[in-house]
Structure formats: structure tokens, C-alpha cells
């Protein structure tokens, strides 16, 4: 039987050896760099005509552009699996994949702890409005010209929007800091999964939280889920944390809310048009900014790469995925 064929798009940084070991049961090829147009030309030219699976690395969108319908439509008909490195997969058109019989895996779980750690870093930084002091001391100016008092996390109400793996990990950490946790989710979690967090409606979450952490996935219905209308409902002086996806928040509306004081401070790892950041955020030293580094640790990056590879191996050996995206999994009857 002929070997199945797998294509790596982008690079592998931590598990090169494990990837190359797959050559014992997989024909391996790579597209480390190039352009969208070049990649699509090669697809249309039949260069990958026997391709079975794609290992889609984290930075592959920089190489080929998003896996939207236009690109998916020119992928070879032999392709059955796309194994994506990333917990977020908004740059893949899942519907287009499903219609072509392509199954897609992402990397949940592996990202939970590292992203939750960054959420806490941003949350504490925002609570303390740390930015000017941080910058001053590094410049040898000690406290700088604007030393300020912050807030304790203890006894504050943390509202988590999206209580998946990452949201739950944030909840665990926040509880250790003495915060009261409430959440809103597509569906309520079981008591065991909730671990004492209170389930509330979306509006109640906005109205009653002191700190709001966004931990939900980006899709067509959650884009700009936080805009002016939602800011108007929030408590005066709320703190916003976003480690999920930039377009969940209307960034211009956030800038306005910061200016008016409705939002006291914000901690952001992601931005609507990253790497471009709204100048209103750059000019506001009540915010703590990071350049999308939620999962940027040696251990987590390695774990993520391994999970993608394990999905690939499972696809080849057993024709299924370990962490298939929920949109493609059949809805289970809740009996």
C-alpha cells in the first residue's frame, strides 16, 4: 500500500525529531515559506495531488494567508485532515472544510495554563495600573512622575466570558487571589466543572463584574461582542482583560470607554487589527499591553506542536482526530 502523504506548512521549532520520525509511515513534504499565490498555484498545478493531511503550523497564516474558502477550494481532493496549531482557528473556514470532507483539529487544553497565566499577569497589571511605574523604574527614574495606587484583586467580582478550558484555568487562579468568580458561557457547566463559579446571563455578567475577562472563541456571531452598547451596561471603573481574540472587542469603543473613565484600565494580549494597535491604546498609560504571547513558553509551544503531530498520527493510523474542532463533532443527544 502506498504511503500517505503529509505537508508541513510553516515551521516546526521544538519537535523536529518527532516530525521526521514520521517518515517511517508518512511521506513528508514541507512548504516553509513562500506566498499565498505561489502556494495556490502549486495546489492548482497538482504538486500536492496525493496529499492526505496538512500540519498547519502556528505562523502558517503569514505564509499562505488564511485558510478561507478561496484557498480551501483549491486544496487537492485527496486531502482529508488539517491539523492546526492553535486553540483559536478563526483563520480557517470550518464550514468550507466540512463541505469538502476535510476534518480539522485544533490545540485546546495545551494552551490553557500559559494563556491563563498571561490573563492573570494582565489582570494584576491592570488592577495596579502598572504601566507608568514599570516604565519609570526601567528608565532609572524610580517611581516616575505619576506614582499611583492600584486595587487588590481580593473580593473583586471577576466575570469570565467563555468558560472553556482557558476560562476555567483563569477562574482557578483568580480564586487563589481571593476573587469571586462568575461566568457566562454558551451553556452552563456541570457543578463539578464550575468549581464554585456562579453562572449568570450575559447582561448580568456585564452589569455586575468588577473585572471582565474575555475567554471565548471568535466567530461570526461573537465579533464585536463587546462594543459601545455593552460598555454602557458595565459598572463605572470596570477592568477589561482580553487574551482571546482582538475582534471580540470594538477597539475604538474601548478607547472611548477608557477616555471617559468607564473602563478604569485594561490588560490586552490581542488586538482587533494586530499587529496594528489603536493609537488611543498606545497613548493611554492605564493599559497593559502584550504582543499576543499567551502561549509563548518553551513548554507550551512544545506541547502544542506535539498535540498537532499526535492528531496527525491518529488521522493516519485510525482515520480520526484527537482534538477535532467542536463545530465538526456531531451534536450529542443530552440523554
Amino acid at each position, binding site marked *: 500500500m502506498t504511503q500517505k502523504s503529509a505537508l508541513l506548512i510553516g515551521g516546526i521549532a521544538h519537535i523536529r525529531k518527532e516530525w521526521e520520525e514520521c517518515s517511517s509511515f508518512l511521506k513528508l513534504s514541507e512548504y516553509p515559506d513562500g*506566498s499565498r*499565490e*505561489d502556494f495556490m*498555484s502549486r495546489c*492548482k*498545478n*497538482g*504538486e500536492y495531488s496525493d496529499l492526505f493531511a496538512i500540519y498547519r503550523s502556528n505562523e502558517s497564516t503569514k505564509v499562505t494567508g488564511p485558510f478561507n474558502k478561496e484557498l480551501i477550494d483549491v486544496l487537492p481532493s485527496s486531502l482529508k485532515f488539517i491539523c492546526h496549531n492553535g486553540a483559536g482557528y478563526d483563520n480557517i473556514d470550518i464550514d468550507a472544510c466540512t463541505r469538502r470532507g476535510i476534518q480539522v483539529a485544533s490545540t485546546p487544553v495545551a494552551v490553557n495554563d500559559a494563556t491563563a497565566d498571561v490573563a492573570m499577569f494582565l489582570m494584576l497589571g491592570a488592577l495596579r495600573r502598572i504601566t507608568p511605574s514599570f516604565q519609570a523604574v526601567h528608565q532609572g527614574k524610580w517611581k516616575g512622575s505619576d506614582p499611583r495606587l492600584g486595587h487588590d484583586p481580593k473580593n473583586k467580582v471577576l466575570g469570565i466570558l467563555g468558560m472553556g478550558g482557558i476560562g476555567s484555568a483563569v477562574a482557578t487562579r483568580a480564586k487563589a487571589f481571593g476573587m469571586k468568580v462568575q461566568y457566562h458561557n454558551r451553556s452552563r457547566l456541570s457543578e463539578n466543572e464550575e468549581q464554585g463559579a456562579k453562572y449568570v446571563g450575559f447582561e448580568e455578567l456585564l452589569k455586575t463584574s468588577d473585572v471582565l475577562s474575555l475567554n471565548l472563541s471568535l466567530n461570526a456571531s461573537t465579533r464585536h461582542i463587546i462594543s459601545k452598547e455593552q460598555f454602557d451596561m458595565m459598572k463605572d471603573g470596570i477592568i477589561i482583560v482580553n487574551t482571546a481574540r482582538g475582534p471580540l472587542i470594538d477597539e475604538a469603543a474601548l478607547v472611548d470607554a477608557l477616555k471617559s473613565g468607564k473602563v478604569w484600565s485594561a490588560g490586552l494580549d490581542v488586538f482587533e487589527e494586530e499587529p496594528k494597535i489603536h493609537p488611543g491604546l498606545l497613548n493611554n498609560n492605564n493599559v497593559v499591553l502584550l504582543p499576543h504571547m499567551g502561549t509563548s513558553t518553551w513548554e507550551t509551544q512544545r506541547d502544542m506542536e506535539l498535540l498537532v503531530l499526535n492528531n496527525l498520527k491518529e488521522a493516519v493510523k485510525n482515520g480520526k482526530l484527537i482534538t477535532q474542532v467542536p463545530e465538526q463533532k456531531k451534536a450529542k443527544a443530552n440523554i
Partner: protein
Amino acid sequence: MMSRKYNVVVTRQLPEAGQILLQDASDIEFVQWTEDRPCDRDWLLQHAKGASGILLMLTEKVNEELINAAGPQLKVIASFSVGTDHVDRSILKSHNIRLGYTPTALTDACADLAVMLTLMSQRRGGESLRKVLDGQWPQMPWSPLLLAGPPIRGATVGFLGFGRIAQATLKRLLPFGIARALYLTSRPRERAREHYIGLLDGSGIPVEPAQDWREVARESDVVIVGCALTPQTKHLVGPEFLATMKKRAVLVNIARGPIVDTDALVKALEEEQIFGAGLDVVENEPNIPADHALLKQERCILVPHIGSANTETREQMATESVRNLLAGLRGENMVNEVVL
């Protein structure tokens, strides 16, 4: 009932992968030029009669003469090239003939050659090789300034044309420490709309549209010609351009010969108005005999239109051209099609 077979003309032997695709296509009858030289025009005109598709090279002109010789059943021209200056596009458009080409397959190979010519012209590679081959090294022992040329580090690189090949060339030059890039396109002063290699927002050096050709000539240490040949770009690099260039600047042409005025270039090199030139293409190619004026210029490197000559690229161009041809015959999507 006999199944329909299209008559097809192929003007050259193709690299193997392309030949196989041709032979495997069951709905074509093809006639192919087999000699290892450009096909005779008469042969082409004769065999084009009744052809529905023609796969040809940049050596074959597509004009009214060819279209008329073929007849109304001609549906597709597949060109084994990215340049289409040998094709009268308006004639194809008016006759509803589709045009395939290979714009992406050869980007890397041409950009590689652009870098090679840049370094060779700056570092007097042609001069050096000539002297060694002429047995002059014994008279030329090492000395501090022997055959010294300007550095690439810190250079301002000016691009005439800023498409795929130019951008891929820029990407290759960045690690050599160039300081700045500017580019002139058919829309002067406008930022390039297509970022073929995604680096324009993150290259770390200024990459800016130029005001006009004067700015490119005046500011550049390396001028790289990477634009299409059109009535507007013919002789774009002429006496004025060369006179405006820096004395230590080099000119590189990997696009089409007629964009550079050859006589003006010979004069500019003779009078040391520029430091050197690296050319892959030249007016009147391939008719460049040993006593051609350009070949007498030591600071001119001339290579015989080898821009896309790497074996993998040519294989890819071959398969793409055949697929474009078959798609045009069958009414399907081509790999790459020129919007006429």
C-alpha cells in the same frame, strides 16, 4: 462516435514532467517542434492552421499573423513565461482566446539571479574572471584595492517595477544589510498594492514608493529593473537616467532587454558614469556576437537570459503551461491566467 480531439501545437520539447502530461492527455493530438532551437516561424504558421491550442515560448510572437493562420477554432495560448510582451493581448481579447502564463513558478529563480548579478557587478566579478581566464593573475598580485568595489551593506536599492520578482529580490537583499529600498511602479508615488511576500510592513528598513524615475536614479546604489516591457517602459533607462545615477552605482536588468537603451549603457560605462552593470537580458538577444560593444565593457556582466533556469522551476513551468493549455481547451480554470 469518435471522441473529440483538439489539435494542439507545442513549439518546443518540454522538461519531462510536462511531456508526460501532454502525452497522457487523451483529448489532444499534438504536433511538436523537436529541434533544439527556437521553432521556425513558417513551421509554426503552417501547423497552427486548425489548432485549438498553442503552447509556446517567449521566442514566438503572438500577433495577428499567427491568429489568422490558426483560424477561428483557436481557443487558448499557453505561454511558458511570466512576460507577455511577445503577445498581442488585444488581439486575443477580441478573438476570445484565453492566455495562460507562469507568473509564480519562476519568482525565486529570477530573484536569485538578480542577487547574483547585483553582487557580481558591485564586486567586479566579470572583470576579475576575465583577467584570470586571460592569464593575467601573475601580473596582478594581491593589493589592498585590487578589484575593489562598493559594498552592498548600507546600500539604497531602487526598483523599477515592484512585483513578485522585485519583492522576492528585496527579501533576499535584506540580510545583506541594505539600508533602504524605493520602488517605481506604473502608479508612481502610490504604495504597492500587492504584497507578494508579506514583508513590506515588517522589513525593518524604509521601503517607499518613489516620486519618479529621477528619484530612483539619483538615490540608488543599486538599480534593479524588474518591470514588464510596455510602450511606457521601453528605454526607460536611457542617457538621462544613466547620467543621473551615482558614479558608484550599478544597474541590474532581469526583466526585458529593451527597457534599457543599450547604446546609452555602453556610453555610460565607457565614460564611467556608473560603476557597472549586470544584465540577464539585452536588446536584440540572442544576437550578441563576440565583438558587441557591451562585451567590450569590462564592468558589464552579461548572461544569456537564464533568469528562470533552475531545473525545478522549469519543470514547474512546463506542467503549469500544459495544464493551462488543457484548461483552456476544456473550458476549465487555469493554474494562472492573464486577465485580458
